[in-house]
């Protein structure tokens, strides 16, 4: 991954965090808002591999944990694992269609929300039974809509490595 691409991904995480915290709560549908940080982490996992996705998931999740009233570290952990698994699962599919990130975001959301809730129950932070399938399903669908916008946008900003650009130049005569 080129340095420019790393900077771009860093900006994407911070942007997703700012939008998640300030704009998304204003656009809740059925009491649910999309999880932009998770969507960005899964998209990075699809485009750059599971470890890059995990790092983005960790950074975004930790930012979210620090700046919001919830148990610190839980979102970071669940987003790390969700993005990593999405990156691993990507290798099982031989397609570059946009349907791949759509499917992976859908599955990663279900996994992340389930794990987040499970972790809070284990930590004694959540009383039973607020676990609603409708909430999980609504957020998954909302995230799918978000990935349809985010994935093509992030795909456009692929910065070539220096070696690649040299290889593409026409050889000089003589």
């Amino acid at each position, binding site marked *: 991954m080129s340095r420019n691409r790393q900077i771009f991904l860093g900006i994407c995480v911070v942007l997703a965090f700012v939008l998640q915290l300030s704009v998304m709560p*204003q656009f*809740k549908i059925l009491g649910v808002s999309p999880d932009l940080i998770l969507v960005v982490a899964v998209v990075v996992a699809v485009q750059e591999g599971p470890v890059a996705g995990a790092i983005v998931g960790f950074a975004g999740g930790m930012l979210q944990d620090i700046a919001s*009233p*919830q148990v*610190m570290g839980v979102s970071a952990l669940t987003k*790390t694992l969700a993005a990593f698994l999405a990156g691993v699962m990507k290798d099982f599919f031989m397609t570059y269609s946009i349907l791949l990130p759509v499917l992976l975001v859908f599955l990663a959301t279900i996994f992340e929300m389930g794990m987040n809730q499970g*972790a809070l129950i284990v*930590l004694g932070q959540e*009383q039973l039974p607020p676990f609603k399938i409708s909430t999980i399903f609504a957020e998954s669908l909302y995230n799918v809509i978000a990935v349809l916008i985010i994935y093509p946008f992030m795909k456009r900003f692929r910065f070539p490595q220096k070696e690649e650009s040299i290889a593409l130049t026409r050889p000089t005569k003589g």
Partner: protein
Amino acid sequence: MPAAPRSNRNRIILIVIILLCVTVVTLYVRESDKGPLHKVQNFFLDLISPVSNAFAKIFRPIKDGVVNLFHLPSLSKERADLQKQVAELQRERIDTKEMEQALSEMKQLLHWTEGQAELETVGADIIGQSPNNWQRLMIINRGASSSVKKYMSIVTEQGLVGRIISVGSRSAVVQLMTDSRSEIGARDQRSRETGIVQGNNGETVRFTPMKEDADMKVGDVIETSGLGGTCPPGIALGTIKKVTKRSSGLTRYVEVKPFVQFSKLDKVVVVITPEPESVILREAQ
């Protein structure tokens, strides 16, 4: 083979991240509300509150426009209902004025003086909401610097919104009464039956009466009872929407529709009350 070391490096990175997360979670859960990680969290909440405030102000008109668009079909029915309510309220107003007059005359006769002091309040703006869909929390732009403390009640002119569960210097976290962890002492305004109102992350809350044969009817107003000492008594919560009974006919629980429309909340009021004794004792332990 370059693939093997790279794969090992990836594995190490993943393990380090997971260990780091688990360590942070453990430290956070084990420390008190005044621990270093909580302090960091409160500091960042204070730091981002002006930004959230600005964004909320920018996007609220857009959100209101979208919400109104969705509610367009029900607006005409709502208008008719409101006109009916206005007519009823006007009749009630006349009755109330007469009763007020009678009451003041009786007070004068009994030399009765107002024993209760007016509640002290502080106005606040909603500047953020919980990013997590499992919680029903809001962040307000008032904190310890405005004398706001933990467990103080948040109200609007419609009724109770919730309670403060965490306080920073210039911001505070409000747990809405619809949050699944919220439990508030309440009573039926008509029959005075007491119980507990619990949230379930939905649009309604659940009132469980202390007595199973409690006298409760659809349409009754539920208000805070003041028991537990965290909420002042007499703040309206909502109206009974449905009474669920056991096969034996005894009341199991009651579904209550809150008066407050949480999706349209913009400004709230913090009721400044002394810290309840139960809380002081619990924290001293």
